[in-house]
């Protein structure tokens, strides 16, 4: 009984940590440019797929991961520079469609380069599962949690201790004012997309050994990250982490105790319930609309 609960909890926290990283990526881009980037999931896909194909070519794992993350980062910058920046005057919906176009484009490229097959990735360390109170914990889960925690702490330090991080924050608060004090906002926006892409691709790499990877995993993972970000409240880093973990745990519990067919429905019902009572998510900032 307890072992079962613990098992679902492990699964939930692992996948929840991934959702949290995706949600953080959403949050970052949302804060910097008020765009919801529907191509966020593709960064995960790039991370996983590039690592798999590079290791298959004989590149050592660590180097493969670094190259994969770099590739995603470059894609993030290109996305901002060539798709988002030229359309800055566009409507919210138009920007959504642009990022959807971008995600279809990236997916198409991935399919072209890597094919449509599912790929399996090796665990980072041993395949031996760890047993705790009768529940089984995949060793990769520890990697997901550990790297997730490092990234979150790193982000917090980045935004509070470094000048570049503060420049991103300033741009997100007021772009015009930021420009007036000498911040190069276009560069900052590109940086935000870069960091977001790095977060996404790292999440994609660490979770790949657990979930498998293929050219089209980005769609659903990206959407779940969006759900997590909205539960936490768009724009709140804290919200993204809490939202991600909450979503992962609720999903795993729903799959375990209710029905795995309906686990996604539970996730999407949860967002409706949260938004019903808190229209700006759990930690969303209250915004006064100007007329």
């Amino acid at each position, binding site marked *: 009984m307890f072992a079962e609960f613990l098992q679902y909890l492990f699964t939930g926290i692992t996948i929840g940590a991934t959702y949290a990283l995706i949600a953080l990526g959403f949050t970052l881009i949302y804060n910097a440019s008020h765009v919801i980037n529907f191509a966020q999931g593709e960064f995960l896909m790039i991370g996983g797929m590039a690592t798999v194909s590079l290791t298959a070519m004989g590149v050592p794992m660590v180097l493969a991961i670094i190259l994969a993350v770099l590739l995603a980062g470059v894609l993030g910058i290109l996305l901002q520079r060539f798709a988002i920046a030229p359309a800055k005057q566009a409507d919210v919906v138009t920007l959504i469609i642009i990022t959807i176009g971008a995600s279809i484009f*990236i997916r198409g490229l991935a399919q072209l380069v890597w094919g449509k097959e599912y790929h399996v990735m090796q665990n980072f360390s041993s395949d031996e599962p760890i047993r705790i109170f009768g529940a089984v914990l995949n060793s990769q889960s520890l990697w997901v949690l550990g790297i997730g925690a490092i990234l979150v702490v790193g982000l917090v330090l980045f935004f509070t201790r470094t000048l570049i991080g503060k420049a991103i924050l300033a741009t997100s608060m007021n772009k015009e004012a930021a420009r007036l004090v000498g911040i190069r906002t276009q560069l900052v926006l590109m940086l935000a997309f870069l960091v977001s892409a790095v977060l996404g691709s790292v999440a994609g790499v660490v979770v790949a050994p657990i979930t498998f990877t293929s050219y089209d995993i980005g769609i659903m993972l990206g959407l779940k990250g969006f759900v997590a970000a909205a539960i936490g409240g768009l724009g709140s880093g804290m919200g993204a982490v809490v939202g991600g973990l909450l979503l992962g745990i609720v999903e795993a519990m729903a799959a375990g105790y209710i029905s795995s*067919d309906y686990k996604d429905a539970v996730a999407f*019902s949860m967002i409706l319930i949260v938004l019903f009572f808190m229209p700006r998510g759990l930690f969303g900032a209250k915004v006064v*609309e100007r007329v």
Partner: protein
Amino acid sequence: MLNRFMQMRLRDLIILAVILFALPLFLNNPFHYDLATQMAIIAATVVGLNLLVGFAGQISLGHAGFFGLGAYFTGIMTSNYGWSSVPALVVGAILVGIVAWIVGRPILRLKGHYLSMATLAVGFIIAIILNNERALTGGPDGMPVPAFTVFGWELSPFGSYNLLGMELNGSEAWYLFAAVVLLVAVWLAQNLIDSPIGRALRSVHGSEVAARVVGVDTARYKSLVFVVSAIYASAMGSLYAHFQGFITPAVAGFDFSILFITMVVLGGMGSTMGVILGAVVLKLLPQVLADFQELETVMFGAILMLTMIFMPKGLLPTIQTAVGKRMKKKAGGQA
């Protein structure tokens, strides 16, 4: 004379009618007719969605949910319970309207991305239910739907018909039917847009707070237009189910929802003719790109991105502005 015609209220409707009834001159096999029929049904759906997106300024990323509900209600009632097509379509549309009203009230309070999220969630939940209630819907494998029937008269893509002495095969007959449906859908939408309700909706689009200040009951109008657009989707879903003869939960899925909203935005939000153009372009594009095989997805994504970057107002409004400018230049040159 030409000028006065251009300003007539029914101008768009007349132009559309001429195009729709002249089109068969260029269609020369059942495949073309079937594609045109699909386009007309989908176009009528996005004309309804445009009321919500283009005029009231609200986003829906889950509209295929309503389309799918209509399709499945028709499928289940006509094949399992022996209902006739029209009652199934009407009752389905009413029920979907009620569902939309119930979910619309709370979610339309949400703004911007939260509204996108909520509508996306509603669409997903509907698709998941359709996928899993195998006993009722046949699950992921889908279910067959009988032909469209009115008082025992059957409209099937495989039948043959006689209209005012013209011999028509099933595909041609379906096309004419869908064309008339599209015209009616556009006419109804135009009437709604030109009514006081339409003006209230546009004020909501402009600025919701300002609209409320001048006494527009924004919540009521937003739910009203949400319900209307859901009814459009449901009714067209019903027709789509009959026309296709087979439906799967994909008709309610995320991809379809995205396709609908993309048609609206690509064609030109707030322009009824624009969104019809959007529907035509996005239905045709995969046919054209199919020749490129593996490159199809990449090209589709690239075209979508580039169009939206360089024509953020959508295809038709951009073309109209360009043509308008040229005409003005010409007129200026003559004077």
